[in-house]
């Protein structure tokens, strides 16, 4: 944005949210927009954590216009940032969260976590086909892990996750 490096995160959030507001007025109207998708900690874009004020602003924009807020916690979820999920730092709750990587200690598992009315809107098989695993709740991972890899370490990892039910706490 061409601002000095010392600019506060609140100021940066305000500016970025203004740009988002313009985007919804000029480029894609809220009626034509389904969701806002964000990595709360930008991964391959340079390890940039979103300030809490920005995530809170996104939640407000999503609520105002009836958009879904989707957090991609594939890289920053499951403990890597010191909380189960990075969104816990801000307290902002997404409508959908996608997870992978740390979920199974390196075994290629991924999941989509959301509430029932959203997951029920998807026709059966529409996600599994792409290689992703559609999960209503995290405990499904346990069953899946058991089917795929028996007693390997990913099962133990998932089992621990399942007990905690952490993912469900952080979804609307």
């Amino acid at each position, binding site marked *: 944005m*061409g601002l000095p*490096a010392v600019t506060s995160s609140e100021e940066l959030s305000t500016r970025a949210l203004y740009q988002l507001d313009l985007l919804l007025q000029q480029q894609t109207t809220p009626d034509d927009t389904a969701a806002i998708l964000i990595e709360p*900690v930008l*991964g*391959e*874009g*340079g*390890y*940039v*954590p979103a300030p809490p004020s920005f995530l809170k602003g996104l939640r407000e924009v999503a609520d105002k216009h009836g958009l879904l807020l989707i957090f991609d916690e594939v*890289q*920053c979820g*499951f*403990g*890597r*940032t*010191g*909380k*189960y999920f*990075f969104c816990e*730092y801000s307290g902002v709750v997404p409508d959908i969260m996608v997870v*992978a*990587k*740390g979920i199974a*200690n*390196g075994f*290629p598992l991924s999941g989509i976590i959301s509430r029932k009315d959203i997951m029920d809107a998807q026709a059966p098989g529409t996600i599994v086909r792409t290689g992703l695993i559609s999960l209503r709740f995290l405990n499904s991972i346990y069953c899946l892990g058991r089917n795929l890899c028996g007693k390997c370490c990913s099962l133990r*990892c998932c089992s*621990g*996750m399942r*007990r*905690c039910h952490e993912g469900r706490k952080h979804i609307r």
Partner: protein
Amino acid sequence: MKEENILDNVQARSAELFASLEQLRRDPAVAPFILDVRGAGLMAGVEFASPTPASDVFRFQGAPANLASRVAKRCQENGLFILTTSVYQVRMFSSAFLNI
């Protein structure tokens, strides 16, 4: 994760990692070449100064080229596997969860 107190361990190791990176940033010999130290927990990134591109407001002509990948290469030669990320000169430290 609960039994091994992984989240507490991440917080503790994170404090150590960021303390050492900030210390490096205060070192007058390298300070001019470090634009930013950022991240959360054990997702830590260091952005180095770069002599290019010309239109970048943070461009620093006196900085060596390709610092991030050169630092990463040297770390890998010494047994520390780290990667670079983004179009800028960012080197990322990431926890041992496999980044597939």
